[in-house]
């Protein structure tokens, strides 16, 4: 069985093209089932950045043709943007995808779940099942043994990560959102995903504050009430379009007296800034503006790229293991035939000697059975090992042919 991959990704096709070949879960399941007809295996991996078809088939050419046709059926213009990979190259690509090495942001974690879902929705057999299981293992290993997926890749994720540096687990921590714009909401959602609680949404226009507060299950406030609620907040995220500071150091200092030394993290995503920079000098206050956060993101992305080099080594090692396993599949039928033939001969010879063996008691008879079986196993052990080794070194097919010829196994194919 050959492994075939046909697909396109953000490296090869713009979003206008990718979106036309993107498939939802049901469509991906149906396409995989359709391509798997005739004893093939098929998995369809479709995300916002890629649509890839993985097939395992005896006839690689035909499988590739069918996969290309299936994608061209969705969008004829996609054909020039398709890549076609086979066997080791296809497995290596899958493992890189699972490890997040082929993603727009190296190491992003979402892809691992998408690979898992594709595997579950596919029509798999021995080859694709093994390939996808090993891809998932590789993805987990790359993330566990390197820091590729640890650091945030956006300003809002960096803000949430900073909040964790100050407070640890964010469960139950109160967030005060100043400004009801998209940027603030994005940061708030990132904090929400880490189990923080959006307690207040303050905005110059109370209607907009109320609208966002309803969606976030928070309390809406006018800007004038920020100072009043500040003692109850752990994180302040500001992103208004106000021309001056919405919160100055004196107001924060007054609020700090009621906070009993609790830390306060302030994230200023606005330009011009909403929060007085002097707040950062107050004891227990940590103020980060958009420049600080962008510098952190740039640094963490370069860190991810450094870690990607280490992850590539892990992926390459796992892909090599898969190659060896896959190559060994070529010799498995020959080994099975050889062992079956040897067993057949052994049993035939024992039957011939039935007259002689008939005089033996049960114990002696079992000993003869065991000795003959051991002789067969010992004789076949080394050829079996050598054939598997040869398969790993790409000579497997030649060895398998030679064994079939030498032992007259041709008819058993």
């Amino acid at each position, binding site marked *: 069985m050959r492994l075939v991959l046909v697909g396109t990704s953000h490296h090869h096709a713009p979003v206008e093209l990718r979106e036309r070949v993107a498939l939802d879960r049901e469509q991906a399941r149906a396409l995989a089932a359709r391509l798997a007809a005739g004893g093939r295996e098929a998995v369809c991996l479709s995300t916002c950045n890629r649509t890839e078809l993985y097939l395992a088939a005896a006839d690689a050419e035909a499988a590739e043709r069918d996969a290309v046709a299936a994608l061209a059926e969705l969008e004829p213009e996609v054909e020039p943007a398709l890549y076609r990979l086979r066997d080791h190259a296809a497995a290596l690509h899958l493992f890189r995808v699972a490890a997040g090495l082929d993603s727009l942001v190296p190491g992003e974690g979402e892809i691992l779940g998408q690979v898992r879902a594709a595997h579950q929705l596919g029509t798999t057999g021995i080859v694709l099942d093994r390939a996808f299981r090993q891809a998932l293992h590789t993805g987990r290993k790359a993330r566990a043994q390197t820091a590729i997926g640890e650091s945030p890749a956006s300003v809002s994720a960096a803000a949430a990560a900073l909040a964790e540096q100050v407070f640890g687990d964010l469960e139950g921590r109160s967030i005060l959102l100043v400004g009801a714009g998209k940027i603030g909401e994005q940061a708030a959602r990132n904090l929400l995903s880490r189990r923080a609680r959006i307690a207040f949404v303050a905005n110059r226009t109370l209607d907009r504050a109320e609208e966002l507060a309803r969606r976030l299950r928070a309390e809406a406030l006018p800007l004038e009430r920020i100072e009043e609620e500040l003692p109850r907040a752990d994180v302040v995220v500001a992103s208004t379009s106000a021309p001056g500071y919405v919160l100055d150091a004196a107001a924060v200092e007054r609020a700090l007296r009621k906070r009993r030394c609790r830390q306060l993290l302030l994230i200023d995503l606005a330009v011009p800034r909403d929060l007085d920079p002097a707040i950062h000098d107050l004891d227990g206050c*940590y103020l980060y503006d958009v420049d600080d956060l962008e510098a952190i993101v740039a*640094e963490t992305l370069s860190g991810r790229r450094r870690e990607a080099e280490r992850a590539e080594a892990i992926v390459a090692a796992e892909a090599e293991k898969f190659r060896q396993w896959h190559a060994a599949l070529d010799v498995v039928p020959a080994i099975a035939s050889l062992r079956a033939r040897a067993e057949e001969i052994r049993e035939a010879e024992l039957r011939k000697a039935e007259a002689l063996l008939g005089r033996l008691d049960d114990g002696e008879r079992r000993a003869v059975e065991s000795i003959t079986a051991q002789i067969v196993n010992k004789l076949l052990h080394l050829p079996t090992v050598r054939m598997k080794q040869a398969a790993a070194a790409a000579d497997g097919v030649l060895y398998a042919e030679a064994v079939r010829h030498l032992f007259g196994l041709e008819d058993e194919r």
Partner: protein
Amino acid sequence: MAELLFWPALLLYGQAVVGYLGDARRPGGAGGAATWSVRLGWLAQTALLAVQAARRDGFPWATWAGSLNLFVWLVVSAYLVWGCRRRYRLLGLTVMPLAAALLVVARVGGGTRVGGSSRYPDLFLVLHVGLVLAAFAGFTLAAALSGLYLWQERRLKRRPATILRRPVPALATLDALALRTAAWSLPALTLGIAVGLVRLVADGDRVDALVAATIATWLVWAAYVGLRLVAGWAGRRAAYLALAGFALVIVVRLALPAVHFA
């Protein structure tokens, strides 16, 4: 022969220090190896203490150096409660050099020898020495956590772009753990001092410099726990107070014991 167990313990603690230094320069595999060195070193030291306990007539750590050996073991034991977690590896860099250095001092003072006897009854020493040393080990860990708090707090104030590169315990977590460790250790010290004072009065002895310094240490840590629980102290001020309390622990453990143990 059993005294040789000192060497693997020391070497492994030393190796842990090197590993944690490597991890501080570049977070990764060295930190994991360092944690394993601490665990194995702790096992070697545990074996040494077990042999000392089995072969000595009476309480085996009645001398100053012997008690230092036990103190190091307690500090490393307390560290291992959190030290195994990846985020707490930097704590190892504050605790393990101290543990390795004090183990060497204990060795030089003869605290790792096997055999001999003690002139004090076991129960008194178990209660007095055991409780005081356990409390001091807890305070040492609380001070290390406070030191780490100040370091992390300074980083957050400096706002470097690399701030998220290293896995470090959160400020609030460090603050809470330091308080919890000190709050558990204070009753042990209180009881240990009380047992010592009862014996002092019974024997008609006088309060020496070490006893006075130990009481001062108790006062500082009691103030630390009290101010935090009652007055709501937290953060930098509380961390500095913990370090002041630890300075007294060092004085009590290293500078004054000659008078007391004589």
